[in-house]
């Protein structure tokens, strides 16, 4: 079996790389694939928390690289019945503890056993970024519809292209439909024309994402939520399925109209 190594990166911090990694990884596993997610944000690990695996960590990525433990000793199985594993980052070390070449070797090893190896990249464009991207053959960029995030995404796409990672794909995260409708937020077209890359997913801002992350159960488990459904579709597209992009629009059902009239419109969005 030869799997695919995909890096999930953004440049700017806090746009949802880790959330996207957890959800796409889980989504791919739900589709029946063998998936491993690797947290390379050494010193600031989060992926384990989002996936609810924090208190199962014994060994981490740096232990594997340094040979303190075997590769499969550091792999933590997901709580659910999927073939999903996590290799957590070390919390007490820094980004210089691993060399790009070492991570590349480890991913090559993982590719033999797994369908998908997802690398959660640290924010920034320094050593940690370089290490995380060197092992990957594909890249997914996460951005939000804000100028600062888009500027950083632009820079990262340039860096990826110059290091031979062509045609990265884009996830636009935290789109607020009513703000887009009012013209207060950039829409998909604006972002797409600025960054000139393929968009692989649009994720609406959804409170469920935060709740799910706090509970340690990625939102993709709940396909009824708008964000969960969006991540499920993204997992499908990563998997090669042809799923058209859905435009994100404010909820306009009867109930929400009524709620709007009495001033209790919630902040959950659905797809038109």
């Amino acid at each position, binding site marked *: 079996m030869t799997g695919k190594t995909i890096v999930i990166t953004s440049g700017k911090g806090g746009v949802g790389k880790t959330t996207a990694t957890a959800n796409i990884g889980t989504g791919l596993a739900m589709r029946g694939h063998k998936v491993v997610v690797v947290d390379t944000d050494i010193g600031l690990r989060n992926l384990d928390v989002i996936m609810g695996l924090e208190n199962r960590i014994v060994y981490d990525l740096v232990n594997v690289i340094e040979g303190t433990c075997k590769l499969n000793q550091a792999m933590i199985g997901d709580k659910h019945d999927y073939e999903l594993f996590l290799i957590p980052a070390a919390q007490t070390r820094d980004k210089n503890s691993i060399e790009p070449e070492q991570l590349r070797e480890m991913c090559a090893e993982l590719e033999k056993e797994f369908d998908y190896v997802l690398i959660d990249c640290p924010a920034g464009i320094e050593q940690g970024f370089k290490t995380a991207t060197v092992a990957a053959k594909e890249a997914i960029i996460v951005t939000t519809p804000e100028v600062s995030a888009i500027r950083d995404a*632009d*820079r990262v796409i*340039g860096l990826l292209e*110059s*290091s031979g990672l062509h045609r990265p794909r884009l996830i636009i995260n935290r789109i607020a439909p009513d703000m887009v409708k009012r013209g207060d937020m950039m829409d998909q077209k604006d972002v797409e024309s*600025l*960054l000139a890359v393929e968009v692989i997913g649009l994720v609406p801002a959804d409170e469920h994402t935060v709740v799910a992350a706090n509970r340690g159960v990625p939102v993709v488990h709940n396909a009824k939520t708008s964000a969960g459904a969006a991540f499920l579709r993204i997992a499908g597209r990563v998997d090669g399925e042809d799923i058209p992009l859905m435009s994100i629009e404010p909820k306009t059902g009867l109930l929400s109209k009524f709620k709007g009239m009495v001033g209790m419109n919630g902040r959950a969005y659905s797809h038109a």
Partner: protein
Amino acid sequence: MTTDVVQVVTRGADVAIVIDENSPFDVVTAELREYLASRSNLLSKGDITLNVGHRMLARDELAQIKSIIEANSGLTVTRFWFAPESMESGLLQVETKPPKTLGLPTNVADNHPAHNEIDLPGPPSETIAESISAVELMIESLKSRHNKNGARNRNITEALFIKSTFRSGESLHHHGDVVVLADVNPGAEIRADGDVVVLGSLKGWVHAGTSGDSKAVIVAMELPSTRFQIAKYEGIPPASDRRKLNSLSTGPKIAYVRSRTIHVAPFSGRFARYNKGVPYDG
């Protein structure tokens, strides 16, 4: 006259050997040998520029000087500087090793160094044979740049062609014209000795005519508020509302220098007379 024939000049990080333009050639070579021999331990390693001033050298003379420098010290001559009389300002910089074809490479993405600094052209040549052919090419390219009267031929030039979006953090300096087939995004930097044409939206920073050519122009299909530079003149979009209204109209734009100020006008062909442009703040 033992002192001033050969001089070493530093300009920023650049180190240049300057040879006196009026001394006879054999005096220069002898002085050069002597100079390098007396400082052989100082000049043990590194790249150097050779500045020959207004001297007109045959290609074998140039190669001879290069080989003298490289044989008598650990230095590598990476650049030659000329000062053609025709150019009213500045020096014309010509690289010793143009790319294999006479035109410059259109695909710059292949050998990007890690930090997106695009280096043009390639590394200095290794052997003397190679350097002679490089010098030959260099002289050819000099000829094509200047007609009989010594004026630069502006009508047919070799341009660098960029086919993908030029992104934030990417930067290049090209000794000629630059054409970008896509957008130039905010945070990107393009410096060109000649004109810059952007067949997309120009949102990054562009400096045309870097070698001092104030006849250089910037053409862009879309020119949203952005600052740029032509020769030594800098332009930022006008702050006053009335003028801003004009400059904000969509469509292709051309930026040029008139009476020491950058003007921007709707683009209507290279040789149209532009005189109704919006002056940019300097």
